[in-house]
C-alpha cells in the first residue's frame, strides 16, 4: 500500500469574530489523505470550510483572527507542516506544494510582467539565474498552451483574458514541478467553454508531471469529471468520503443526496428541482448533534443530540446515523 503524500488529521481552524462575540469554527476536525498522483475533490457549498482547509495546509491563514488549534496535524512526506520553522515551510510552499486560486486577477501582481511572476519561484527555490528563469517561464507558458509565449512573457496581467490569466496562474504554480497542487475553484470565474479548456489542461499536466491534485470546488459536475476520490464537507466537517463513482452511484449522507438532487441537469426536461430546505448555519453556532439535522428529511431525536462519527466500512464513510440504522430512512422525504 502506498503511503499518502499528505495526511491531514483532526484539523481545526478557528477564527475570532470581529466583534469578539464568539469563535467561528470554520474547520472543525477535518481528516483526509492525499495519495501520489491522484485527484482528491473537496466539494461543498459556501461556508463549509473547504477553502479554509486548503489555506490551512499551506499555513496561509491570517493570524489573528485565525488560528490552527493545537492537536491538528498536517503531514507532508512525514513532516508536520504545522511544526515547521518559517524558512523550512517556505522551502516547501510554492516549491513542493503549490496552489492555484479562483480569481486570477486578484492573485496576480498587476505591476509585474507574467514572466517575472513565473520566474520568481524558480529563482528562489531552484536558484536559477534571471536568464535561465526567463527561459523557464517561456517554457512553462508553452506547456500551459498560452499562444505566443515568447511575446506574452512580457505582458502584464491586465493585458490577458480571464482564461489566459488562469493559464499563467497554473504556469506559476507548476514552475517548480510540485508534488502536490492545490486548486481552489480553479475554473469558477471562467466561462464554460474556457472552463473546459482549463480542466483539460489540468488533466494533461497531471498526467505529464505526475503530481497529486487537491481540487476544491462547489461544482459536482467538475468533481465527477476530474476526481478519483471525493470528500464532501458541510459545516466545517467531512460528512462523506468515497471513490467518485461509489459516491455518485450511492451517496450515504442525506446532504450529499440533497446536493445531487438540487443540481440542475442538462439532460432533464423542464421540471422542479429538489431544494434542500433552510440554509447553512453560521460557523459561530453549529447545531447540536448532527450539524445537518435541522435541514435533514430523515432526522430523529438521536440526531439532534448525538453527533455521529464517520461511519461505514472501507473507503466509503459518512457522518450519519442512518449508516447504522438504515431502517430509519424515510421512503419519501417531504421536499421543501
Amino acid at each position, binding site marked *: 500500500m502506498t503511503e499518502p503524500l499528505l495526511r491531514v488529521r483532526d484539523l481545526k481552524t478557528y477564527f475570532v469574530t470581529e466583534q469578539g462575540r464568539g469563535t467561528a469554527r470554520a474547520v472543525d476536525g477535518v481528516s483526509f489523505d492525499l495519495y501520489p498522483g491522484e485527484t482528491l475533490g473537496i466539494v461543498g*457549498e*459556501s461556508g463549509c470550510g473547504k477553502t479554509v482547509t486548503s489555506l490551512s495546509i499551506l499555513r496561509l491563514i491570517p493570524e489573528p483572527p485565525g488560528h490552527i488549534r493545537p492537536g491538528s496535524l498536517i503531514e507532508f512526506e512525514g513532516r508536520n507542516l504545522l511544526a515547521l520553522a518559517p524558512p523550512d515551510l517556505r522551502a516547501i510552499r510554492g516549491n513542493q506544494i503549490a496552489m492555484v486560486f479562483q480569481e486570477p486577477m486578484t492573485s496576480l501582481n498587476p505591476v509585474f510582467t507574467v514572466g517575472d511572476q513565473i520566474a520568481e519561484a524558480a529563482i528562489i527555490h531552484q536558484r536559477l539565474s534571471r536568464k535561465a528563469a526567463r527561459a523557464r517561464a517561456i517554457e512553462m507558458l508553452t506547456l500551459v498552451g498560452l*499562444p505566443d509565449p515568447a511575446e506574452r512573457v512580457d505582458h502584464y496581467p491586465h493585458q490577458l*483574458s*480571464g*482564461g*489566459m490569466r488562469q493559464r499563467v496562474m497554473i504556469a506559476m504554480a507548476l514552475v517548480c514541478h510540485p508534488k502536490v497542487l492545490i486548486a481552489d475553484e480553479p475554473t469558477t470565474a471562467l*466561462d*464554460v*467553454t*474556457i*472552463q*473546459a*479548456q482549463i*480542466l*483539460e489542461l489540468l488533466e494533461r499536466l497531471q498526467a505529464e508531471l505526475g503530481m497529486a491534485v487537491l481540487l476544491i470546488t*462547489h*461544482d*459536482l*459536475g*467538475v*468533481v*465527477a*469529471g476530474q476526481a478519483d476520490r471525493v470528500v464532501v464537507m458541510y459545516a466545517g466537517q467531512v460528512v462523506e468520503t468515497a471513490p*467518485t*463513482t461509489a459516491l*455518485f452511484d450511492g451517496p450515504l449522507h442525506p446532504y450529499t443526496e*440533497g*446536493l*445531487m438532487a*438540487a*443540481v*440542475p*441537469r*442538462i*439532460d*432533464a*426536461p*423542464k*421540471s*422542479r*428541482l*429538489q*431544494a*434542500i*430546505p433552510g*440554509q*447553512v448555519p453560521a460557523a459561530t453556532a453549529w447545531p447540536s448533534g448532527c450539524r445537518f439535522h435541522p435541514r435533514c428529511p430523515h432526522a430523529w431525536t438521536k440526531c439532534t443530540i448525538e453527533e455521529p462519527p464517520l461511519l461505514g466500512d472501507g473507503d466509503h464513510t459518512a457522518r450519519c446515523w442512518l449508516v447504522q440504522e438504515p431502517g430509519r430512512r424515510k421512503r419519501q422525504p417531504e421536499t*421543501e
Partner: protein
Amino acid sequence: MTAPLLDIQNLVKHYPGRPPVRAVDGVSLTIAPGQTLGLVGESGSGKSTVGRTILRLQEPTAGRVLFEGEDVFALGTGPLRALRRRMQIVFQDPYSSLNPRMTVGRTLREPLEIHRLAPPAQMEARVTALLDEVGLDPAFAGRYPHELSGGQRQRVGIARALSVEPRFIVCDEPVSALDVSVQAQVLNLLADLQQKRRLTYLFIAHDLAVVRHIADQVAVMYLGRIVERAPAPAIYSAPRHPYTRALLSAVPEPNPRATRERIVLTGDIPSPAHPPSGCPFHPRCPHPKKNDRCRTETPALRVTSDSPAHLAACHFAEEPI
C-alpha cells in the same frame, strides 16, 4: 397564435469608442405571454445588455421594442415610469442592488409609495404579504441587507420586483451567485410565482443546465448576435449551431460515468470591439465544413430543420459535425 407580450426588433446597442463596442448587434426576439425565454451566452455576448436596453436602463442605438403593442423606445418620462410598473428586473447580485442603508421593509415600501399602490394604512400588510409570497418571515421587514444570506437577499430582490405587480420580469442571472441548494429554492420560487401571477420572464443566464429547468424557449447569443433560437427541448436534444453544440458539451455533468464527448473550443471569446468578419464564431468553430464563406459572409438566422420555430445562424447547420 397569441400576440407576443414582448417583441424585440433588430435591437442594436453600440458603446462609443474607437472602434465602438458592438455589444448587441441586431437582435430580434419575441416572448409570448406567460412564457419564459432563456437567453444564454458567455461573458461579452451582450445578453445582459439586451435585458437592460429593453427596460431602457440603457438607451438603444437602434431597433424597436414593442411591449403589449406599445413602442418602448418612443415613450417620454411619464409614460416610461408607468411602463416600469409592468416591466421589472431582478439582478444577479442582490447585495449590490439593495440599498444597504434601507431596511427590507423600506425597500419594499418605496415602489408602492412611488406608484401610489397602497394607502399608508395598508402599507405594512402589503409588505408582509410580499415577504410571505417569497417565503420570508414578516420579521425580515426590520432587517438590513447585510443581515441576510445570499438566498434571502435574492428573495427580497424578487419581492421588490413583484411589489408593483408587473406582467414581465427580466431575470438577469438571478441564481448564479447562489449555492446549489439555495439556487434550487429560488428557481422553484420563480416557477411558482410565474404560475400564480401569470408572469412572463426573460431569463438571462450563462448556465445552460439552469435554463433547462425554467425556460420554454431558448436563444443562444454570441458576440452580440443570436446564433440559435428554438423551443427548449429542441435546443437541448438537437442543437444546430456548432457554438451551441460546444457549449452544451462543455457543461460538466454530475455523473462520473458520463460518456458524452466534450468539444473543447480553442481560443478565447473575441472582444466585441473587434468582432471577426463573416460569422463571428468562425475563428473558434470546429465544424469540418468551415470555409472561406464563413470568413466573409455573416450567416443569417434561418430555419434549419423541419420545425419552423428552430432557427440557427450557420451556413452548415444541416451538416453533421
